[in-house]
């Protein structure tokens, strides 16, 4: 019996093991290995969030540090999730790796998940530095775990957006412009780096339409900033809904197979 024949009759556990192995291989070769081999890429992951953090720290004379730290965390993860879209477009257009993957047992979910996971690994160093700073500022371990869950939900949301876009974008230039635009739209413009309370009241409902606003609110609250219980509840409900909605969009509406 060949490997192919064995595969045709694989059990659920064999299928799960194979998919995990697939995800591990794609994540390792497309995400982790390039980072290890070109460590000079790493400073770029730190650049934007830490620059904004620095400006807000200096400009706000330390007053905005809590929201700025939350913003830097959210932006780092959101940016990497969206960069997934640009990277996948390069893999699709330049390398035809999506074509190779479609014509293989790799599912669209495994493909997206494995490359998104590698992007998360890429984002890990700045995230760890920021979490250490937050922990040093007096935030406990349990709250840090909650912050990590917020980060993961943000990662699922933005990676899904990135994957969805990559399957529709037809050239790499458009992909990079789109990613930069969306990154600005969801990481800089809404109250991610600054407190939502300084926004005019009529703009707040608009801000709450972005998942990163809720991620930042939750992280700020875990850092000790006071928010109403309704706001906290709303954000804990909204963030998973965003994650599920965008993940569904990526899984069911992404153009894995072209029409």
């Amino acid at each position: 019996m060949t490997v192919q024949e064995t595969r045709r009759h694989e059990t659920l556990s064999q299928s799960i093991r194979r998919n995990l192995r697939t995800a591990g291989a794609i994540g390792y070769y497309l995400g982790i290995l390039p980072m290890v081999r070109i460590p000079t890429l790493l400073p770029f992951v730190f650049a934007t969030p830490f620059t904004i953090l620095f400006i807000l720290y200096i400009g706000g004379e330390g007053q905005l540090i809590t929201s700025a730290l939350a913003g830097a965390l959210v932006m780092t993860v959101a940016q990497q999730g969206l960069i997934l879209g640009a990277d996948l477009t390069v893999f699709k257009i330049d390398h035809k790796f999506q074509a190779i993957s479609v014509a293989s047992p790799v599912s669209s979910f495994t493909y997206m998940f494995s490359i998104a996971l590698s992007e998360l690994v890429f984002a890990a160093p700045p995230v760890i530095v920021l979490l250490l700073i937050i922990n040093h500022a007096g935030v406990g371990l349990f709250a840090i775990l909650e912050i990590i869950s917020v980060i993961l939900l943000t990662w699922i949301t933005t990676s899904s957006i990135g994957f969805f876009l990559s399957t529709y974008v037809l050239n790499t230039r458009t992909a990079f412009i789109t990613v930069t635009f969306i990154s600005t739209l969801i990481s800089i413009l809404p109250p991610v780096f600054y407190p939502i309370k300084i926004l005019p009241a009529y703009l707040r409902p608009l801000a709450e339409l972005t998942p990163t606003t809720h991620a930042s609110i939750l992280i700020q609250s875990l850092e000790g900033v006071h928010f109403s219980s309704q706001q906290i509840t709303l954000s804990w409900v909204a963030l998973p809904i965003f994650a599920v909605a965008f993940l569904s969009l990526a899984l069911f509406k992404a153009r894995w197979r072209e029409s």
Partner: protein
Amino acid sequence: MSESIIEAQDLVKIYRKTKVPAIDGLTLDIKRRGIFTLLGRNGAGKTTFLRIATTQLVPTSGTMRVFGIDVMEDPKSIRRRIAITPQEARPLFTLNPRDHIALSLMMRGASRAEANAKIDPVLRTLDLADVGKVHSEELSGGLRQRILIAMTIVCDVELMFLDEPTIGLDPLGRRKVWQELIRLKNKEGRTIVLTTHYMDEAEALSDDLAIIDRGHVLAKGNPREVKQRNIGPKTRVDVAEGFTFEELSSYGTTIRAGNLLRVFTTDEVAQEISREALRRKVPISISPVTLDDVFVQLAGGEIEEEERKVENQEEEPQRGVLTK
């Protein structure tokens, strides 16, 4: 088990943007265990056919069955049993040939140990062993192309698709790939579907081939059959000087092939031209008709017809299709 591994019936593909059919009612069967080549001009629909067969692209209408499975009904069952080298693909940055082959195997579920056991043999087969650990961006175009081929042929699949696999390879590199494809067919019973613009490649490798144009099959069969059916005479005579087009036209179907005049004719008439050339002391070349000639005649027919119309409008007709 069906004799055919791919069956296309009245297949149509119209891309939304162009609105022009890339494939227009194509019906084609490809047999198991062998090398099948799709030939055609640029835009003839070869890559579209491959993309539908590999479940990447949804057809507009018609049916395509691979392993007897409809590509629209159960693509997952097909995907487990196929692999493709897409046209104009590029290896991934920072990865070396070893990484690419490992990735290709492990993304299909192979363990690290299983992948490692297969890497060196395929590297040796395609002359990549010396550059196994060199990053792909530092390699020549030909070596990069071999990495992509290696990623496909290393897979334990029944059906492989290679879209212009030897483009950019030097003649020795091409022959290495040919040898391996023939070995995979003969020793491992694989089916290989490839597209190429190299007629010598199609002739050297194919058990069967089809010449398609705008999604229609112009000719199909083994290379010998295709030549016999589509060009009557078996011999061609190339003449560089000493004869006019009109003179040669009286010996057989004559065309311009670059700086040469080429006559398709019988062995006997070729001998006659040879004697005449000897008398005029001009060199000629006599050889069997090639697949290239058939291709030009079939796929290039429309172009020649259009050119002829333009020429006729501009001046007196030069080109005749006369046989002695």
